[in-house]
């Protein structure tokens, strides 16, 4: 499985899997035109004129589409286009303001997850719907049934084991508390729960966002198994490569409306992106800027922490060092350890040329580090505080006056950041919680910009954000490097690493497995290094 895109501009996507199921004409992408209103009578799912308003906010304003049995229907669109809202309405987690949904011809009771599940509709949610204190077994076994039904942990574990084995997930321990799993594993459990009992319609809302290529491969195998049995899948993703590989057909949403449709093989990245954005746009990875100094921004030798066995690396000033590897091989731990968010030791450790022994977040910030954490909602932003205060948070000094951004001298800096990153907000006093996820992500990144940072540690900053926002972030990252900031960038998207980084280190089981530069820095090499020693597992379909 290779990713469909190459780095440069407009290459068309070769459909990797043969024989599209429907004989639709190749040029079905009709940007701006109304979607087909002829719904086949044998459609599994028909959504008619779905509308969802949150107060004055119209999340979805009249979406009509259908899904055939055995079909994989992609739902694409920019951040905030309404994909998750549509998915949640189908899954029963959100009650539509108006509109109708039928499954196999029967109307779906709206606003009840249980009813939807009984109609065979299952959803793996974008914001994972797992209970952290429950074991995997409990999470997999408790969704249905009457409250006073008996429950036995032992039986649940056994059932969960069987399910996980059937789904080729032997590495997940059903007795582990979900909260202790990595994000990728949690996503796998979420998918496993949705897959249990062979759903007729499976909704995957950015279910692959934390998965690395083998994980995605595993997911695609499950999808193919399901569709082979006649089940349908609605697949939401920002990764166009995945769409190209798995989707038979697609619906493009823009601003809560259907902006167009496409069929397998009948589209190019550029067309799709234009359709999503509503204008011409192209996919573009900036090249890393030439390095002007060989100063070392950060170096560490034999860094050890929980989940990290021994890592040595060096980030130069102005260098973009990518971190690749399969999820759960220590990337998150590496960034957290380097920032001092979790305890760690190293034989030798320098930041900006100065030796240190250990660190805490407070000291790291003082030494010129910045960190964009994994979970923007829980770790990145104070959602009930204003945009301005969130940007300023690391820079509060107790004695400094003018805490509210409006009055502070920092106003220029704040509006600069908001405009550089094109943050869609009503202003620095808007609450961060009312921004869309992508815009929230920009804030977490933006707070470190133009603040004399030595090194910025990025944990998958483009996870789940739309194409345009991604490109804005790439630009900002490259710009920072140009200013001499060292960047340590972990990404689940191999393409990013390959195109925007000077160098990439690949982690495997808590160690650096390989370091790739120049000609060796290709997507295949990154993936190859990531799975060294576990390629058998890849072929077997399991995820390490």
């Amino acid at each position: 499985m290779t990713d469909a895109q190459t780095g440069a501009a407009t290459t068309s996507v070769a459909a990797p899997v043969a024989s599209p199921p429907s004989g639709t004409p190749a040029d079905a992408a009709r940007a701006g035109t109304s979607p087909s209103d002829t719904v086949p009578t044998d459609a599994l799912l028909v959504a008619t004129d779905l509308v969802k308003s949150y107060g004055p906010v119209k999340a979805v304003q009249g979406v009509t589409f259908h899904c055939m049995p055995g079909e994989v229907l992609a739902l694409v669109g920019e951040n905030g286009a309404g994909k998750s809202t549509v998915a949640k309405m189908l899954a029963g987690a959100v009650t539509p303001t108006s509109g109708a949904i039928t499954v196999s011809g029967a109307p779906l009771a709206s606003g009840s997850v249980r009813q939807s599940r009984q109609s065979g509709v299952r959803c793996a949610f974008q914001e994972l719907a797992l209970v952290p204190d429950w074991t995997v077994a409990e999470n997999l076994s408790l969704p249905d049934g009457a409250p006073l039904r008996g429950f036995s942990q032992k039986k649940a574990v056994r059932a969960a084991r069987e399910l996980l084995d059937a789904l080729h997930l032997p590495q997940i321990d059903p007795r582990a508390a979900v909260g202790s799993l990595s994000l990728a594993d949690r996503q796998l459990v979420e998918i496993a729960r949705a897959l249990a009992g062979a759903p007729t319609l499976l909704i995957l809302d950015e279910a692959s966002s934390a998965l690395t290529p083998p994980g995605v491969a595993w997911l695609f195998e499950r999808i193919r198994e399901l569709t082979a049995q006649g089940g349908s899948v609605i697949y939401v993703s920002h990764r166009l490569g995945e769409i190209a590989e798995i989707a038979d057909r697609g619906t493009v949403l823009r601003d809560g409306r259907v902006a167009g449709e496409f069929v397998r093989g009948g589209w190019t990245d550029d067309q799709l992106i234009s359709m999503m954005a509503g204008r011409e746009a192209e996919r573009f990875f900036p090249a890393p800027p030439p390095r002007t100094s060989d100063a070392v921004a950060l170096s560490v030798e034999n860094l050890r922490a929980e989940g990290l066995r021994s890592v040595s690396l060096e980030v130069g000033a102005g260098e973009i060092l990518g971190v690749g590897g399969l999820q759960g091989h220590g990337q998150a731990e590496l960034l957290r350890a380097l920032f001092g968010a979790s305890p760690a030791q190293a034989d030798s450790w320098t930041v900006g040329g100065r030796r240190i022994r250990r660190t805490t977040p407070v000291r790291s910030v003082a030494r010129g580090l910045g960190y964009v954490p994994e979970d923007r909602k829980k770790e990145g932003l104070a959602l009930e505080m204003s945009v301005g205060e969130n940007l300023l948070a690391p820079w509060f000094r107790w004695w400094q006056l003018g805490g509210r951004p409006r009055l502070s001298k920092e106003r220029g800096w704040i509006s600069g950041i908001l405009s550089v990153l094109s943050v869609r907000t009503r202003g620095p006093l808007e609450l961060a919680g009312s921004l869309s996820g992508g815009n929230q992500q920009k804030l977490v990144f933006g707070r470190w910009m133009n603040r004399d940072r030595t090194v910025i540690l990025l944990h998958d900053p483009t996870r789940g954000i739309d194409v345009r926002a991604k490109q804005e972030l790439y630009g900002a990252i490259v710009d920072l490097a140009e200013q001499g900031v060292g960047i340590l960038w972990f990404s689940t998207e191999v393409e990013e690493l390959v195109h925007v980084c000077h160098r990439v280190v690949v982690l495997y089981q808590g160690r650096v497995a390989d370091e790739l530069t120049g000609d060796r820095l290709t997507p295949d090499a990154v993936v190859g290094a990531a799975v060294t020693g576990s390629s058998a597992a890849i072929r077997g379909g399991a995820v390490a």
Partner: protein
Amino acid sequence: MSAVTPPVSRFGFLNGTGITRLRREGAIAPIGAFVIFFVVYVAINPSLLTRFQLQTAANLVVPLALVALGQLIIVLVGGIDISIGAIMSLSNVVFAVQMETMPVPVAILIGLATGLACGLFNGLLVAYGGFPAIAVTLASAFIFGSLSREVLDAPGGGITKEFYLATSGELLPFLPISLVWLAVVAVLLWLLLQRTALGRHIYGVGSNMESVRAAGLNARLTKLIAFGLSGVLVSIGAILLAGSTVTGDPRSGDPYLLSSIAAVALSGAAFTGGRGSIIGTILAACTLGLIGNLLFFAGINSYWQYVISALIIVAVVGIPVVWRRVAFAVKGARS
């Protein structure tokens, strides 16, 4: 396919269901604390184990243990109940007043219904109104307290000596009867929490309400049921208190607010919800409830009990934290 079937041990208490669960629920430290406390107590006052003293001690701690269990249920669903003392007072006086005219079983049912109603009142506002439990129960603490003084303006009511005998007296030959009632309630509650889906739902709702809802469970109903259940537990405590003091008292629940929270804290439950154990809570209540007694027999000014209770809570809850840190530091230094 590589069937790594986990070894499901036959010694259930050694794996998932037993020690591991207690550890996860934070109950190891309070159990240990109780054992130490008990040993010290018996060393100082061996006659604790006499029938008379055991009964005295049991009558003192059983209402506290029951109210603490009520508080635990609320804490499990991620709340805290400030009105728990007022619910206790109200159930206590309603029961005592009903005892004047009604047959005992009817009076008991009305007493339990009072606790249930109070719990459901809180639960409706918390689960379906979406308001924070601490604020709702702060309000209902004022309301229920006021109501209980309307029902009975001064201690009184119609508790009989027979009722005392059946709840707190010498009904059984060796065992204090109040302990038996506590055990019955605790076992039923344990079955409910550990052996039914509802019980797991209660734990789940406290752990993450949104997830539970997105998984298709009725999270609000679960929360409501938890509040109702808590109210019933509190009213059982109130009825036993009425029995052991042979009176209904509109202020009888007041002292139980802080002590129930203290007991749940000592039990190692997580106040963020989703974690907590029944046995830990009961033993924590016993420890806290008997400190005053221990000081009496040790001949120490009873005012020390406030200081000692506070220190026990901080120590028992704090030691594992310090322990984990030290252990990590040691491990790190070795590697």
